[in-house]
């Protein structure tokens, strides 16, 4: 427990949110100042997060396994306190978030339409996301969970594509349905827990089986919609496709992880019995999602929609690993989730640059720039290939590690599901390589002398390169991150297994 830095987590949230407030005071026409300040704020958050990482490795957790715990009075009347704390899972997601946001801000540097509002919303989104990741109080968690929706809604609806308005409303209503079910669950659990809203205390409270089941359905609705899981996913292709580049990067890269995080932080500790009962049906749905997402992605012509369905398939793998209840598979799923964040961010960023420089949004577009982009945009081609390789799971990338661990750990327990998921890997190779081929290697059809499209500028390289470096780095040295995840997920798996009165099918190593 660090007594010297009791404000670190609050600082982590306060910098982006305070930065957004600061930006609001700046005059509208000072575009450069706005962007610079936004970048500075997000980099400062990154620096603070790195310090948290450093201290994380040298301090010991408190009794419940959380670090940097802050506990202050907030709304005692409702049993709710300003309770913050992180463990390995939340820290890894925080690092993903604070890593991606500055790069996203840099990649949107040229945003000229209502620049000030754009960057304010990005900073609020960052602050709210970090808030979700550090909250240890149910009501505080819910507050930040809902706060995430508002900037995302405005980002999609104001700076998005042609059908942005419908996509934004659909996104909000879909996600809000889950949130309202979540709220009902919170209200019920507040009643059952004699007024405390503390997640750690709630984990120790005893609920009857039927109560757990109902509450699990209500809570998981919000999280599974966000991931998204197959059958609750219909908001995602439209939203990812219509969102501006920064929006897609953050929606797919960061916000979908919040759904998984909610499951890990809330559902697993509190509703272990319900998870024991229902983890197999959820895994089956997730696996069907892998195959469905892959097949539908293969059929797509619009690039962003293809990536949206691919994202659905990959999150299915994460859910498969998570709900297999094998500790190694859960750690692998956590790692795969981080990898997915980086990879999808790189993919959407690359596609965004592609769209900006060549106007290409579908495979059949005959813009004056199409054809043989590998020659005219070699830098983008290389960087995009790293991201593609990670999606497919080529060794050397983080995607390989994630898929390897998740599927090999799931296989002993659930052969058929793991095999089906592996089939998803094959399919991902099909659609991703064909995507790559059609964008970068296809010869131009009608145009004899295509104009050379401009390759990435230094700013764009500066935003994309770090992500690809991270992908390769994590692919070659995954252990530090894996250890961090394992440390927090293993006790969780052990807790769920201990609730089972039957012996497990395979002994947990």
């Amino acid at each position: 427990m660090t007594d010297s830095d009791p404000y670190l987590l609050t600082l982590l949230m306060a910098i982006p949110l305070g930065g957004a407030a600061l930006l609001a005071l700046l005059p509208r026409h000072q575009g450069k100042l706005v962007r610079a300040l936004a970048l500075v704020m997000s980099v400062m958050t990154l620096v603070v997060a790195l310090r948290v990482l450093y201290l994380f490795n040298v301090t010991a957790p408190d009794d419940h396994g959380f670090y940097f715990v802050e506990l202050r009075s907030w709304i005692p009347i409702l049993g709710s306190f300003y309770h913050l704390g992180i463990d390995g899972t939340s820290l890894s997601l925080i690092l993903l978030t604070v890593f991606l946001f500055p790069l996203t801000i840099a990649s949107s540097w040229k945003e000229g339409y209502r620049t000030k509002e754009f960057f304010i919303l990005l900073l609020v989104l960052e602050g709210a996301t970090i808030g979700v990741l550090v909250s240890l109080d149910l009501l505080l968690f819910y507050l930040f969970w809902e706060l995430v929706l508002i900037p995302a809604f405005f980002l999609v609806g104001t700076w998005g594509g042609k059908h942005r308005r419908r996509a934004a409303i659909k996104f909000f209503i879909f996600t809000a349905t889950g949130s309202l079910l979540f709220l009902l669950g919170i209200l019920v659990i507040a009643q059952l827990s004699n007024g405390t809203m503390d997640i750690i205390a709630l984990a120790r409270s005893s609920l009857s089986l039927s109560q757990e089941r109902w509450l699990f359905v209500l809570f998981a609705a919000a999280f599974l919609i966000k991931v998204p899981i197959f059958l609750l996913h219909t908001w995602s292709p439209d939203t990812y496709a219509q969102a501006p580049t920064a929006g897609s990067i953050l929606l797919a890269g960061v916000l979908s992880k919040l759904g998984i995080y909610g499951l890990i932080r809330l559902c697993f500790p509190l509703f272990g019995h319900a998870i024991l009962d229902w983890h197999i049906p959820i895994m089956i749905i997730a696996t069907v999602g892998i195959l469905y997402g892959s097949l539908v992605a293969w059929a797509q012509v619009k690039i962003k929609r293809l990536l949206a369905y691919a994202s659905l398939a990959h999150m299915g793998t994460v859910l498969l690993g998570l709900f297999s209840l094998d500790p190694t598979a859960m750690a692998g799923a956590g790692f795969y989730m981080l990898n997915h964040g980086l990879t999808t961010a790189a993919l959407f960023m690359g596609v965004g640059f592609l769209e900006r420089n060549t106007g290409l949004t579908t495979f059949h577009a005959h813009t004056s720039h199409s054809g043989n982009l590998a020659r005219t945009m070699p830098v983008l081609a290389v960087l995009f290939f790293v991201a593609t390789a990670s999606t497919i799971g080529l060794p050397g990338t983080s995607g390989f590690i994630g898929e390897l661990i998740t599927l090999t750990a799931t296989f002993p327990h659930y052969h058929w599901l793991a095999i089906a998921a592996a089939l998803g890997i094959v399919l991902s190779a099909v659609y991703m390589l064909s995507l790559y081929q059609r964008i970068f290697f296809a010869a131009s059809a009608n145009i004899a002398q295509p104009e050379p499209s401009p390759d990435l500028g230094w700013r764009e390289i500066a935003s994309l390169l770090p992500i690809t470096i991270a992908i390769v780095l994590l692919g070659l040295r995954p252990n530090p991150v894996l250890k961090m995840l394992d440390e927090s997920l293993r006790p969780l798996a052990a807790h769920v297994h201990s609730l089972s009165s039957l012996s497990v099918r395979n002994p947990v190593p």
Partner: protein
Amino acid sequence: MTFPWQDSLYWFSPLWILAGAVLMMLSLSTFISRDRAVTVSRWIASLALAVAFLKYLHHWQFNADIAVAHLALARTTLFASLLVLFSSLCVSLSSTAFLRTHPSLKKPELYMLLVLGTLGLLMMLSSGHLLFVFLGLEMASLSFYISIGMRTEDRLAHEASLKYYLLGALGSAFFLYGIAYFYAATSSLSLVSLEGGASLSVTGLRYLQVSFVLLAAGMVFKAALFPFYFWTLDVYQGAPTLLTGWMSTVVKATILTVLLMSVRKFSQWIGNLDLLFSGIAAASLILGGLLAVGQSYVKRLLACSSISHAATALIAIAAGCHGASWDNAATGPMLYYLLTYTVMTLGAFLVLGLLTSERSDDLPLSYLRGLAKKRPQLAFYLSLFTLSLAGLPPTAGFFAKYTVFIYAIEKGLTWLVALALATTLIGLYYYLKLIALMYFEDPDTTVTYPTNTETTLAMFIIAFLGIATLALGIMPQQYLHWALSSQ
């Protein structure tokens, strides 16, 4: 028995102050020109309301309930009185901005009616004597009827005023009939006679039940709940926007508090009140929500939303009745809901009031298209208040709903809470539609917003309400404490 003038003068001085202000403003036009009279009236009204507010605030510090003859002030009714005075004060102060674009309302009688209405509502809250309550009700209603129809050439306003008058008279008739039955039951006109060791014969009990149904019907009428809510759409639409805001906030606060105070006394004599109120709340939520979806005028949309909000506040009362006896802990959540409702609705209508001129006061939804580009500050505040009406964190509306729902679930009305959450989802659709209209669309080139309405005072009040909305949503502890300590 002689009336204790001195005591009433001290404890109920706000009533005397407001009455004096009304009399002053009535006779003002005799002495000075009408134009000067408008300014002077505004000063008198604002000053009187401010002094009244401060006096009641001072009384609220004391914990004891006040009783002087038939006048009585519990902390609950003090809280509601403060809400009414606050709302009226905000309206009076922002009227300068509003009157710049609505010159036909620029009459000294406007302020006189404002204070008269406030006085009437305060009278309703200051007594347990039913005839006094009725007197206050009629005084307030009269001022509403007239002030709504004050615009000389607006047919819509005249229609609204007449509709409100006719239907409001019906509601008042119910109330009066209920008073008659109350007298038949208890041989007294004061609710105090229901307390303690009172006893009633069988026929007396029968009469009391009828009395309550009629009294409740009258109050449901005024609060615009199912089944007497249809008038709100036309009346809110036709009334001048600022007055709509005033009307919707003060009436809801008063009527719901009076209803609560009555239920406190009646609940030991009449059973199944929870069934009655949950039914009304459920039906109002569903119908109010569904009605709002198809609306194409902003004020009608907000009228439907006010129906839903009144229903949510009613959930607290229903939960209080659910059980062996009346649970007074229902008061806190309901008062907190009224506090947040006042702040956010007043804010929304104030912003809208700054955007309209006399010709465009009917406010079709398309009028707000692309507002964010032309009036970014007002669009921001309107979105903030709309998000609060929708009940999203971190705004006031969220914790208001949360407190009521937590209490309702504690008392066992989980089904009603689930229904309320479902209608919240429906509500999200039309509130988001409004925000999307302002932010995601391009402005209509044929629409021009007035340029001179954003006065410092009006913007200050709107900013204050905006900050209050966020404060109530992020750090509600202190304000929850206020509401809960007023039980």
